[in-house]
């Protein structure tokens, strides 16, 4: 067979194999976690907080960690969104090609790769300095730091891809920069903005290291921003660390919960994205 045809075939196989490895590992993770945790999933797990001796295999559930995680990641995502969108818009619409913009982008790329334990210990240091103890607020602050680079850079990329002629249409009707940014840029970028939010939320809800010192862990559901908060990743960590097989099984069940939360949010946002895509100009 001639060389070019062989090449063509070789690279096609290579790409298919790579894709299968990706899908295969995703499936493997899901199957193992669900398989090992399925037996421990029960209604009480979702509706109760841990009772005495829960970590020894007695009664109770992980409602504290489910609610704690939603509070932590939800709060951090809202906070990060409020900072990220203006920043991303500023980088693209106002500070385009300025030194400040390229420096900001570079800093964000560095921050993106900072390990989350660093955010955690940084948050911890600040909290000690302020005399705060581990709390929902501290956890939210640390997770916000973790989310910011992801969210801003993801939004930045979508906003940067918006065709110039869209804005031109708005300017040529006599719109100001702000009107163009709010009514045209954001509208066009909305599906991408949603993806950025989801990406950041996923990172935050799955992170253990940044909340370990900042939010702490508790068997109760936090009643205020100043109470400590439990989280699912830490629930997995603590339960898996016990020597009891039934508690370890619960760790996997907690993992399933984490997956369910992330997957359902992902599905909802996918449906929403489709709806938002309707008006987007391609």
């Amino acid at each position, binding site marked *: 067979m001639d060389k070019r045809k062989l090449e063509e075939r070789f690279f096609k196989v290579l790409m298919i194999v790579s894709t299968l490895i990706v899908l295969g590992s995703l499936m493997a993770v899901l199957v193992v976690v669900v398989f090992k945790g399925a037996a421990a999933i029960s209604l009480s797990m979702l509706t109760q907080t841990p009772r005495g001796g829960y970590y020894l295999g007695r009664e109770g559930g992980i409602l504290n960690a489910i609610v704690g995680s939603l509070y932590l990641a939800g709060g951090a995502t809202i906070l990060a969104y409020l900072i990220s969108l203006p920043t991303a818009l500023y980088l693209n619409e106002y500070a385009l090609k300025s030194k400040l913009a390229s420096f900001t982008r570079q800093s964000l790329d560095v921050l993106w790769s900072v390990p989350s334990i660093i955010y955690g210990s940084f948050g911890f240091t600040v909290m000690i300095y302020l005399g705060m103890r581990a709390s929902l607020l501290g956890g939210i602050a640390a997770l916000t730091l973790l989310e910011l680079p992801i969210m801003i850079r993801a939004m930045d990329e979508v906003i940067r891809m918006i065709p110039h002629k869209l804005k*031109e249409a708005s300017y*040529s009707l006599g719109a100001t920069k702000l009107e163009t940014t709010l009514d045209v840029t954001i509208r066009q970028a909305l599906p991408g903005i949603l993806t950025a939010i989801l990406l950041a939320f996923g990172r935050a809800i799955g992170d253990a290291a940044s909340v370990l010192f900042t939010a702490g862990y508790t068997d109760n559901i936090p009643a205020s921003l100043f109470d400590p908060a439990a989280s699912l990743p830490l629930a997995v960590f603590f339960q898996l660390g016990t020597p009891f097989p039934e508690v370890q099984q619960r760790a996997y069940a907690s993992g399933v919960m984490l997956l369910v939360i992330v997957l359902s949010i992902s599905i909802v946002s996918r449906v929403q994205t489709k709806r938002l895509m309707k008006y987007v100009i391609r």
Partner: protein
Amino acid sequence: MFEPHISIEKLNVYYGEHHALKNITLDISEKMIVAIIGPSGCGKTTLLRSLNRMIDLVDGVRVSGKVLVDRVNIYENSVDITSIRKKIGLIAQTPNLLPMSIYDNIAYGPRIHGTKNRKELDQIVEKYLRASDLWNEVQGRLKEPASKLSTGQQQRLCLARALAVEPEVLLCDEPTSALDPISARRIEGQLLALKKYYTIIFVTHILRQAKRLSDYVVFLYLGELIEHGPAEDVLADPRELRTQAYVKGEIS
């Protein structure tokens, strides 16, 4: 007495080092169609876009000279750019829709200029969709995304959108070049009909289109204004050698 609607005085435009328009002086009177012709890269689009300061959006652009519209220099610092662009609309080469419904594409302009009343907006939308001959086609689906329309319909929507802010001048940058011949003819018909109410300046590289539409022709070559005058004179019997060469098709 002849009072020009737009008066261009010693207009120079530079893109960085490149001198794109050289000392253009030109008067345009109202309610006629002016065609700007010339080979590609001669500065047609640049001239068009300097007339409503869309040129400002280009990186590293420098403009000197005056453009008087109704005797006001639009390059004066005290002038509000948004009101200039409201007064002088622009139709782009390819339809540039806003990411909104058909209705909102038209209502966008009036809304930013202060019309919030729903009934008024409904009337504006209908009026200008009729003016651009699109109403019958989209009447029942105003809430649909504008991007669902055909390219020809999209361009007529852009026309309606430009008209909806009630400009005095319409600038059209090769408005039919992305369209099929039938859609192109419809746009041409629209422009002819609109001449009664607006001063229309359009860029074209199709001489026959210039002949069909224009009352007045401006010929640019390498950033210089070579010749301008009534359409029949410039197109049929040009004075300048370079215009003659272009009209005969020797340079393009």
